[in-house]
């Protein structure tokens, strides 16, 4: 029963899920590019964004926009605290230990969220209504447009920030060689802190804009975090176009796989891609082979 409108629907669904994965992937890339750490607590910031928004909406009765802003501020604070309490005290350790610490932190944050907010799933109201939009016989929600739009904005902002601003350049310098960066007067500690702040802000933003579609609960971060990680691995840890393409590709393959093969393999597809990339092209699909810039 193949017909064009079905294909369009698969592609649209895939792209909109892919944009979510890309946005989450960004958070991974930013911290990795500034510190060399893989932050596996990234998914939890996605959860925090959604849960904080719902908490603020119901508890303080604020309108949506201030609630979102506050939720991002709170999540960023959690990110900063996380860096100060769990990462910074352990400065001169191997990256592997830091990675394990981030996994521990993610379990901690998830547990705390469960205790504070309970185990229920919550839905956030859509930003601009629930009437689906029709595109060539396929449908898409207005919320998907928000996701595309915000992802696009964040790519551009990222590009500008890391390529043109002094702080962005300093953060990149820290990733290449923290010691050398400190010699030329860059405060490495501040840069690391900043990268955690920025990535938790982006992660929580992702969590907020997807919450009206996917709903949120204390444990949404696990799967979304892994999907974001896949996206950023496909994209070769870039904080730009690579991760976006990685996310979109992952979303597309998942959706087409679920449509034309079987939905049972949906998550398997993500993991197979992850493994294949790590085996065959660990530098990512879109990156030139590493030529260490000096």
């Amino acid at each position, binding site marked *: *029963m*193949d*017909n064009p409108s*079905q294909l369009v*629907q*698969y592609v649209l*669904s*895939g792209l*909109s*899920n892919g944009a979510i994965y890309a946005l989450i992937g960004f958070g991974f890339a930013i911290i990795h590019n500034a510190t060399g750490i893989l932050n596996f607590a990234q998914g939890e910031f996605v959860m925090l964004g959604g849960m904080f928004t719902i908490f603020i909406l119901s508890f303080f009765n604020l309108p949506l926009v201030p609630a979102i802003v506050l939720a991002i501020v709170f999540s960023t604070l959690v990110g900063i605290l996380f860096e100060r309490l769990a990462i910074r005290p352990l400065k001169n350790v191997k990256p592997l230990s830091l990675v394990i610490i981030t996994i521990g932190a993610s379990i901690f944050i998830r547990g705390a969220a469960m205790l504070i907010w309970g*185990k*229920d*799933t*919550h*839905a956030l109201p859509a930003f601009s209504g*629930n009437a*689906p939009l*029709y595109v060539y016989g*396929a*449908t*898409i*929600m207005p919320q998907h447009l928000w996701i595309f739009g915000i992802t696009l904005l964040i790519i551009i902002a990222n590009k500008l920030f890391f390529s043109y601003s002094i702080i962005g350049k300093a953060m990149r310098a820290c990733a290449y060689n923290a010691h050398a960066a400190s010699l030329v007067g860059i405060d490495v500690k501040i840069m690391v802190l900043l990268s955690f702040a920025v990535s938790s802000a982006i992660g929580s933003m992702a969590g907020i804009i*997807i919450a009206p*579609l*996917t*709903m949120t*609960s204390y*444990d*949404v971060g*696990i*799967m*979304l975090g892994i999907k974001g990680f896949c996206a950023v691995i496909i994209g070769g840890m870039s904080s730009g176009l690579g991760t976006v393409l990685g996310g979109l590709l992952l979303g597309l393959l*998942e*959706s*087409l796989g*679920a*449509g034309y093969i*079987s*939905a*049972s393999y*949906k*998550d398997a597809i993500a993991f197979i891609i992850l493994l294949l990339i790590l085996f065959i092209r660990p530098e990512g699909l879109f990156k030139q082979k590493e030529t260490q810039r000096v």
Partner: protein
Amino acid sequence: MKKCFISTTLFSVIVTILSICMAGTQAFAAPPIKIGALFSVSGPAAFLGEPERNTAQMVVNEINKAGGIKGQKLELVVIDTQGDPAKAVQGANKLIKDDKVVAIIGPSTTGDSMAVIPVVEKAEIPLISCAAGIKITDPIKKWIFKTAQNDALAVARIYEHLNKQKISKIAILTVSDGFGSSGREQLVAHAKAFGMDIISNETYGPKDTDMTAQLTKIRGSSAQAIICWGTNPGPAIVARNVKQLGIKVPLFMSHGVSSKKFIELAGNGAEGIMLPSGRVIVASQIPNTDRQKKALLSYVNSYKKAYKVEGDHFGGHAWDAMMLLKGAIEKAGISPVAIRDQLEKTAKFAGIGGTFNYSAQDHAGLAKDAFVLVEVKNQNWKLVK
């Protein structure tokens, strides 16, 4: 002769004094009757275990407030299985060996129940499971009863309705966990008997956040109705995705989402969805002639009073289990054997899940009428006549 008379008198006096003393201790400090409860209060099946624990505790408190059973108070020993069969077995062992309970209610899930069955069978303690899986009481196990309706009954309720609507081509979309695969099994197994043709048989993962791909596939098929089998939040996402894709064929859900939470999550997407459910969510709409009405209203009202939220279908399983147990203890006393034998004689007990009739051949006790079909109308449940 005289000597003999004196010794007999002496003996009877001592016996009398002793029995008075024993009766006295019973009246003054009768030890409470211990009842064990295995519920998945936390973990993935917390949506079952939490209301069940709350309900069981509430019932025990009510019984104690009213003076207990024949003057003896009840004590509920709750163990959280976390939905983990290994923890359920540990818990059952503890309840039997350390707490010396006379009977156990729960576990909440079929997996946990199957795991503890050998333990309680060996210890010869009656167990009333609150899980739905058909294999818990089929084949019959001497010490095992259950209160939750079989999935097969829910499937039959939907298929009957479809027959009436002259719909025979259906698509099914089930979650890939224990609940979903049991539902899928039953949906497939009973399709033929009702003349149903399953055109599309799709699944989704319990943590999936988007089901448009599966639904697009279903939309492209000639299915006249969709049946989704899962527990929150999956079905709520399915409901929203169906609205998004503009799918016009009717959508059916399982009794796994028969709580207000589903309507809250699915929002507008929930409108018009039908599902089989115990009568509890439409308690006030049930006609007064219904035998269950009294139990339903009493449960709904006291749960609301105790916990400020509405009692649901799942808590009802624990209410039934506790009430069945209470009835058996009242009639037969507190020995596990007597409780078991009395439970098996239960007839026409009108509870929350339905009207129970246990027998030596049937330890599930419910008939098809245990389920009613409800529809979501204006963000509320409405009984489908």
